[in-house]
């Protein structure tokens, strides 16, 4: 149990840093570090396949996406200037309060969880589980990727000159 708590503390610390850092590059690097910690957690919890996915997708592709977007902005990588102190303190208080409330109620929420009605399946015993049972989700996932590719190409299309269409300003 103690190793779980240590890695969880690392992960939460890295994510808090990634939000608080003003230099965007450092923020994204600590986000990547938090994802590596989350991948370690997934491995410890007995989902090694998901740990690999986490590293590939989040600590890999999403981090690279963020880095590309930052470097599209040619200004210096600082977040321009801070939020006013009042709003920050107010939102920190709100967040801490929300976490405290939810954590005190979470044992009551969780006490009914450990009685599943149906026998759960194990990926070790049925390795092709996803393909046989959940192929519809995977197919729609492929179409989601197609739609997102089309959306991004719509968003990033080149404009030769300033177009003024029907409802432009």
């Amino acid at each position, binding site marked *: 149990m103690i190793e779980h708590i240590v890695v969880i503390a690392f992960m939460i610390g890295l994510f808090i840093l990634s939000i608080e850092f003003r230099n965007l590059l450092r923020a994204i690097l600590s986000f990547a570090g938090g994802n590596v910690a989350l991948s370690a957690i997934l491995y410890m919890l007995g989902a090694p396949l998901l740990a690999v996915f986490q590293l590939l997708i989040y600590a890999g592709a999403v981090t690279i996406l963020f880095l590309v977007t930052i470097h599209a902005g040619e200004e210096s990588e600082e977040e321009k200037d801070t939020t006013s102190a009042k709003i920050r303190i107010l939102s920190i208080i709100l967040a801490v309060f929300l976490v405290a409330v939810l954590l005190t*109620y979470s044992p*009551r*929420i*969780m006490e*009914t*969880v450990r009685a*599943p*009605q*149906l026998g*759960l*399946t194990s990926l070790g015993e049925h390795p092709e589980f996803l393909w*046989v*049972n*959940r*192929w*519809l*989700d995977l*197919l*729609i*996932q492929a*179409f*989601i990727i*197609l*739609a*997102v590719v*089309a*959306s*991004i*190409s*719509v*968003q990033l*299309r080149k*404009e030769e000159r*300033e*177009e*003024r*269409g*029907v*409802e*432009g*300003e």
Partner: protein
Amino acid sequence: MNPFTPLFLLLGGSLASLLVDQLLEKVGAVKWRGCLAACVLAAALLLFSWEAYHGVQVAEFIVVGPKSPLTASLRLDHLGLYFSIMFCGLGLAVCVYSLSYFKSESEVRIIDRYYLLLLALVAGMVGVILANDFFTLYVFWELMALSSYSLVAFRKWSWEAVEAGFKYLVMSVTGSIAILFGMSLLYGLTGILNLTELASILKSAEGGMLLHVALLMLIVGFGVKAAIVPLHTWLPDAYTAAPSPVSAIIAGASTGLGALVICKLLFSLFPHLSASWTMFFAAFSVLNMLIGNITGLLQDDVKRMLAYSSIAHIGYIFIGVAAGTRLGLTGALLHIFNHGILKALAFLCIGAIIYRLNARSLSDITGVGRKMPITTSAFTLAILGLIGMPPLNGFVSKLILFTSSLDAGMLWLGILLVIFSAISTGYYLRILKALIAPPDERVANVKEAPLLMLVPMLVLAFLVVLFGIWPDPILSFIESSSSMLCGGGRIC
């Protein structure tokens, strides 16, 4: 009929439409782009209507693969069939309308991707309502949502569209996170995700606090899309800034889909908690009606006015949910359908006016009615239907909602419905007054809208009148869906 057939037709058609349109662009026949998309939508509509005409055999759930509760499955019942017809029909109207709406160079260049996104949007909506498995519902919901983000931010040179698109994306993704969280709680309780199995298990489960938290998360998650009041702030900006055919389908179908999924989940999964959620929805319907109508009175931009009126109509729909009875559910489902048609018609008409005039505020469109008579008559029918005038379909559903609130002992909700409908005439009739005023020189050489834009408007206007004076087939379909959701009268 296997529900996989039209679903795969829509999905495959979106990919095929992209490829065919790129081919047509290479060949040089650019006028024909988008016709394959319209044909695919028409074919899906025909398949669904054929099934409806022959009577629906409701199977438990339909899978391709091992028939266990762990499998992703679809379910073809009255509710799914009925609303799939509506989504395919609205999609077809918007697709035909878009064939001649986009004329600027920058948009026409990427019109092939527009049709891909439009077909993916309709496929996502049809999948949500046909899904029998919670995670399948979530994946189709994401398909619908992700297609709509870029459609709203389509005019990337306009600051309004891009900012509205980003705000819409952030709020909608937060909603999706809430949906996943609620779904994970239900999964933790029961270990399965199949909706029919969940419905039978949850009836006897000792959920306690977990069920309440899951219900709250699901309502918040789907409520972002369905414009429940504190979560509605993305709506006016997104509807205004999107191109008009996109506004039409999002306002008519996507917002209604959010309310529809809430109805379906509440009545089939959480009927024993109905004491809590009826009061909740009564409060939120009042807030929706209040904010929608009062803010609508202050607007000058016609599309923004229509957006606030959508918020108000969601309030009317939730009166039916708050009643908690079978009649209330019937009224709510019927109003989702009628409001979808009316709002889509209204947005298509204002789109035609914008197409000819490049303006959309009340002062700018004064007098255009004399020059575009067909558009104005269709717009008048839409507005009268939204107010709830008798021979049109809005009246039928509002009457059922009022009766259901009486029936459930919430007469104050029914009275508020009537009062707020009367208040809403304040801004609806202002639009009409601006349209039929005598024309000034700004609108001197405005012609009627092109034929491809007129045909969908006329078909929708015909449906508005038809379902007003002859609501029986639609009403019987809705009644069978609501009685099935209510478990054959055992629950509500």
